[in-house]
């Protein structure tokens, strides 16, 4: 795959998918032909005005793009008076940024002549988005989901099923997102002839980190334009939550070459990084090889993957996309951990002050951005990606805050 992309729009992986020393392809040889096929098909599609037009039409008329930029006036007081602008990916169809990637890859699946799509999901956001695109485009759809997550997110399982997807609970390993990905890779290698693995985050083997970033690039490009129009200048900081890191990389990409814009990724700190019960791969992990890429991950001293912990199922993943690993090492982006308690306070604040119930994933970004605002002061503009909405999280929130009367 060539690495052509718009000039002046930030770093690109090399031809083999390396971001500095990270990324690449640590996958079985059996998948190399399929990975090459996806890379070549996307390279071709990317340069094809027909594909771009079809995708643009779906993003506008189906997903509802561009997503708005909201001024969070009351939240500003909690951010040291800094101006807080919210990129509203929660208002997209299916309720999160995930739809951007899914529509792009589902169109690609059809162009490759494949008829079946598999995907993994943790919180269910990517699974719901994938099931949605498959319903729209007439593709068979199988979603792998850790058994533990099917219980935590039962409503999303129902959503996927009504959309026509088969949901397969994964009972191996820790029964969460990482095990769902393992199982999806096993399915893919056996069915690769007619199946596309619609990977949900900017991680995994090349070309996925590049492909998923490219399909989410629209988030940052829109936001950059919207902030310039609204404020007349670039933001001082942009903030996003980071699990695998797809919403963050989509937002960051447009700002990487703007040296005045600080990039902040907020990882899931769980009970606190010091407790070991967290999902902060960069803040609390170390470099290694996982799910097809060299990147930061949570591992023990023997290289066995450690279980991750987060109140947010969507961030409950023991690794991170390789481009984030590279942005962290180069210092271009700063990664911090936000604990469950801090994230839930962000969740409460955004709901109460702005009337926006965010996904708990996105609440990590809100909590982190408030701190950044206080650090930068009242003249600063902080852009926060509200990557998803919180409907799916209301059971967790109701338990956490005691919102339901129990008799």
């Amino acid at each position, binding site marked *: 795959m060539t690495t052509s992309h718009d000039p002046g729009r930030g770093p690109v992986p090399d031809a083999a998918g390396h971001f500095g020393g990270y990324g690449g*392809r640590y996958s*079985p*040889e059996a998948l190399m032909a399929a990975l090459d096929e996806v890379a070549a098909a996307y390279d071709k599609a990317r340069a094809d005005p027909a594909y771009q037009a079809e995708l643009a039409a779906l993003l506008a008329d189906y997903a509802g793009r561009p997503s708005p930029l909201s001024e969070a006036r009351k939240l500003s007081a909690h951010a040291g008076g800094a101006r807080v602008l919210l990129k509203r990916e929660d208002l997209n169809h299916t309720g999160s940024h995930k739809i951007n990637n899914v529509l792009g890859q589902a169109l690609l699946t059809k162009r490759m002549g494949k008829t079946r799509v598999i995907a993994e999901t943790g919180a269910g956001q990517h699974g719901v988005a994938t099931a949605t695109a498959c319903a729209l485009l007439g593709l068979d759809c199988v979603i792998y989901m850790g058994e533990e997550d099917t219980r935590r997110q039962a409503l999303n399982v129902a959503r996927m099923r009504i959309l026509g997807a088969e949901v397969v609970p994964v009972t191996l390993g820790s029964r969460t997102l990482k095990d769902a990905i393992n199982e999806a890779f*096993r399915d893919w*290698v056996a069915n690769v002839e007619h199946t596309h693995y619609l990977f949900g985050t900017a991680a995994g083997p090349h070309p996925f980190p590049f492909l998923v970033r490219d399909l989410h690039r629209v988030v940052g490009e829109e936001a950059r334009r919207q902030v310039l129009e609204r404020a007349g200048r670039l933001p001082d900081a942009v903030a996003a939550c980071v699990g695998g890191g797809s919403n963050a990389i989509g937002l960051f990409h447009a700002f990487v070459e703007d040296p005045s814009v600080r990039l902040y990724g907020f990882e899931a700190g769980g009970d606190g990084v010091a407790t070991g019960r967290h999902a902060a791969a960069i803040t609390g992990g170390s470099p290694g*090889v996982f799910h097809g890429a060299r990147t930061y991950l949570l591992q023990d001293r023997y290289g066995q993957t450690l279980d991750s912990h987060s109140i947010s199922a969507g961030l409950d993943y023991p690794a991170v996309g390789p481009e984030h690993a590279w942005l962290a090492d180069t210092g271009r982006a700063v990664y911090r951990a936000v604990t469950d308690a801090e994230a839930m306070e962000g969740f409460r604040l955004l709901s109460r002050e702005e009337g926006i119930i965010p996904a708990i994933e996105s609440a990590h970004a809100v909590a982190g951005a408030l701190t950044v605002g206080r650090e930068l002061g009242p003249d600063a503009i902080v852009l926060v990606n509200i990557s998803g909405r919180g409907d799916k999280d209301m059971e967790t929130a109701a338990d956490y805050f005691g919102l339901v009367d129990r008799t």
Partner: protein
Amino acid sequence: MTTLSDALGRARREGRAALVGYLPAGFPDLAGSIRVIEAMVEGGCDVIEVGWPYSDPTMDGPVIQRAADRALAAGTTPADVIEVVRATAATGAAALVMSYWNPIDRYGVDRFAADFAAAGGAGVITPDLIPEEAGDWLKASDAADLDRIFLVAPSSTDERIGITVRACRGFVYAASLMGVTGTRAEVGAAAAGLVARTRAATELPVCVGLGVSTGEQAAQVAGYADGVIVGSAFCARVLDAGGVDSALPRVRELAAELAAGVRAGA
């Protein structure tokens, strides 16, 4: 120690394919895994792949996953893997390690190569490492004079087969089918064609793995390959037996059946 070239050469001189058996180190526990491997060799395995148990074995089906989980639950460490290699080499079989890349990466590539060679290890199979990402490993395995085995698959293009065999030493591992490890009713029809394509690119021996569990299948694969690799069937014998003592005769019997197969097929 027995090298791969010794083990595969002996089989070739006897006009047959070699029998390669797989078992995770530490499964069902450290001492048990050594006893099971000894039984595999007694039954007729020429080469043993010592599996390095890993938390996320994406190329393995449910049987080997369960075996690896048992080994990890038993507390198997990298030092245990090296210990099992040492015990395997002492049986007279060629001792290989089969490992996903992260445990070796974490151990330290150079340090692993040195420790593994010192324990009598002959070579290493790396199922999720392709030659293009293997720069450190190519150097370390050269320095420690270790064989290194990469995989080819039915989906591999001739170009990729060329890249892969040029990086291999000892033998080339041909995956018989598109899928994960596990016993199958039939060995993939794609296997013979893949072996032929691989032979066109290299003089190295070609061993076939994935799906073989019976003497009959071993004989069939031995008709076109230099070695027959069996893993899940051995693990299943141990899982089903309920204890090492009762597993040993079943393991010996399976190895003998497969050993007869590789002799019948040539």
